[in-house]
């Protein structure tokens, strides 16, 4: 747990949240500030480099990694509302920069203070409740990188359990990949469809009205498939619920959605 009650946190907002769902960024800032952090949002951040790294473009991935390190190494902590982007920084920057000892050391130093949002709140800041309310039953999807690279499983559930009015019903396949996989879902759409259908079926079987997760990639994939199939389950990033920011439409829904209202 953090010695410093008011650490300086650099928010790595992630490209998807930045472009597609700003409310997750605002929710993240609120959660961090409520926990006592001083939050800064460097304006020159772009992306963590996963699309390049996972496509084998190691040179570009390393360049991007170096840029992120330079931008963020001055903070006490770096927090991202995503297990896969945090995992990229924690696990893969040191791999990508392993050839250069000086950069490896800087990558490892950044890795050591980089966290996914919910594990940071729970494990570092000792947050047990966020004071939010949400009227409804939710189910939670464990996104792969968060779960298997960073060991995030209990933290989001513990925080969500503190939300007034919220109950969690677990799927049988919460730990199974949703079929997003970055560029995988557009390169192999048939297989991805099969996987996301299995995920959607598991979500439907829980009877929950809302599905939550900690990664926007998975969430956009799941939402897109639910909506294509006409299934009225709402999809949100867990941070929105934890921060009490659920006035905005759920993912993929218009402002005046008839499905609105949680």
């Amino acid at each position: 747990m953090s010695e410093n009650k008011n650490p300086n946190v650099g928010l790595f907002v992630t490209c998807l949240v930045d472009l597609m769902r700003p409310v997750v960024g605002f929710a993240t800032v609120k959660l961090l500030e409520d926990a006592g952090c001083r939050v800064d949002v460097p304006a020159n951040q772009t992306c963590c480099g996963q699309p390049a790294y996972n496509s084998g473009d190691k040179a570009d991935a390393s360049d991007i990694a170096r840029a992120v390190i330079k931008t963020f190494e001055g903070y006490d902590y770096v927090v991202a509302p995503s297990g896969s982007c945090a995992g990229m920084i924690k696990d893969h920057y040191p791999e990508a920069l392993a050839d250069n000892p000086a950069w490896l050391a800087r990558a490892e130093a950044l890795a050591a203070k980089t966290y996914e949002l919910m594990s940071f709140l729970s494990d570092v800041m000792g947050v047990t409740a966020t004071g939010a309310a949400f009227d409804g039953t939710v189910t939670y999807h464990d996104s792969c990188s968060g779960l298997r690279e960073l060991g995030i499983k209990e933290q989001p559930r513990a925080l969500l359990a503190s939300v007034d009015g919220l109950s969690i019903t677990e799927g049988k396949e919460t730990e199974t990949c949703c079929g997003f996989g970055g560029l995988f879902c557009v390169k192999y759409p048939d297989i991805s469809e099969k996987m996301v259908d299995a995920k959607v079926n598991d979500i439907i079987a829980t009877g929950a009205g809302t599905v939550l997760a900690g990664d926007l990639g998975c969430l956009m994939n799941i939402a897109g498939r639910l909506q294509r199939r006409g299934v009225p389950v709402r999809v949100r990033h867990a941070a929105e619920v934890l921060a009490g920011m659920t006035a905005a439409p759920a993912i993929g829904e218009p402002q005046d959605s008839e499905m609105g209202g949680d």
Partner: protein
Amino acid sequence: MQPTSPQFKQNARDAIADDPLQAALAKLAVGFPMRRLEAAARLPEFEGLRDQARDIKTHVLENLDHYLEAYEQKVTESGGHVHWCRDAAEARNTILDICRKANAKTVTKSKSMISEEIAVNAFLEENGIEPVETDLGEYIIQLRKEPPSHIIAPAIHLSKEQVAETFRNAHLDLAADRSLVEPRALLEEARAKLREKFLGADVGLTGANMLIAETGTNVLVTNEGNADLTNNLPRVHVVIASIEKIVPTLEDASTILRVLARSATGQDISVYTTFCTGPKRPEDLDGPEEYHVVLLDNGRSDMIGSEFHEMLRCIRCGACLNHCPIYKSVGGHAYGWVYSGPMGAVLIPNLIGMEEAQHLPNASTLCGKCESVCPMRIPLPKMLRKWRERQFKAEIGSPSARWALKSWAWLAKRPALYRMAMNAGVAFLGQIGGRGRFRSLPFAGGWTSKRDLTAPSGDTFISQYHKGVRGDQSGALKRKKVHG
């Protein structure tokens, strides 16, 4: 076999549309993982055993030359012969020579992935020798002229009705009114046919789950006992194994056996675990008169020291297949060659070439489930990524995807330009995406063919944040009201 890996995408589509296959995969997807979990839960030291098993193979691979020579010496001392073969052709010819010297007409075989890898069955047939698979699943796919679809359950893709039909087509003496509805009836039918073959075979060809250096022993793990009849009854026993199957001691073999069946089928131990050392000794009651080991390299020594070195720890348990969402979606045949699943996606490019197998390392979400269950803790996702790096360097793959990626990366490295471009793009999409999502969008067909695409809200987080926007207003902000 001629690989169909280049047609992976079509193979996958066919597999997804194949209802009996999907039914079989759905069963596998539940059964194997559940039983593995139960087996691991029964053994508190399971995770520790995985570490030990990994360490054994890591040590072997660092000293492979030493252990291979020690192993050869022990095989020779016990009266057997070791044949070193660089590639599949050498191994096939070596096996044919042994069969010819034994005047063999029939060769019984117990399940061996290496024999699939070198395609020895077709070769023996071409040379007038009948190979007979005696593992039930292998026997079925041999009759159907198919490759295995799973490394430990080769006919997992078939329903029992398809098996019955296969037997009716192949067993011409089978009475038309004989019922083959029950699995037991299928088993009895195969057993009756195979019994004749066991008794008549001149050579028995088996694989090896391990080769033990300190004793010159090969280990055979089966659930059917067919390997025992294959190695004991014929006059000549030939073991075909690749060089990385070596373990130093009997003790090491037993450590690996403790994780093997648990990882594979969730059994504590397989029904039969057989240790064969050399030919029959004068005081033995049974056993083969000749004992040969065909030791195959076939690209393995090139993997040593490469980024795929750790793949050589693989013990072919199939756990990565059983837990892989891609394998569970498309089955083994889609991979287009002998191996499949995550281990196949790493190994196949090593064996048939990176270009032919280019889809396999890419057809993965890198979800990491495989590594989390691998008894040898092989970092499979990391190695899939390594193949992608090699492909990217060699410019293999779609030029347009490559161009798009390079353009995006170029932009991502220039924050000011990136910001301008993204602000414009997001504003535009926000304008036209008032319904919250797109059902189709030019250049996004890969996504929108299967799912709706969430529309951005019109302004990026960074730009809003630096304009001083905070918290609760964000959701309602800048989103066009849609009427009707």
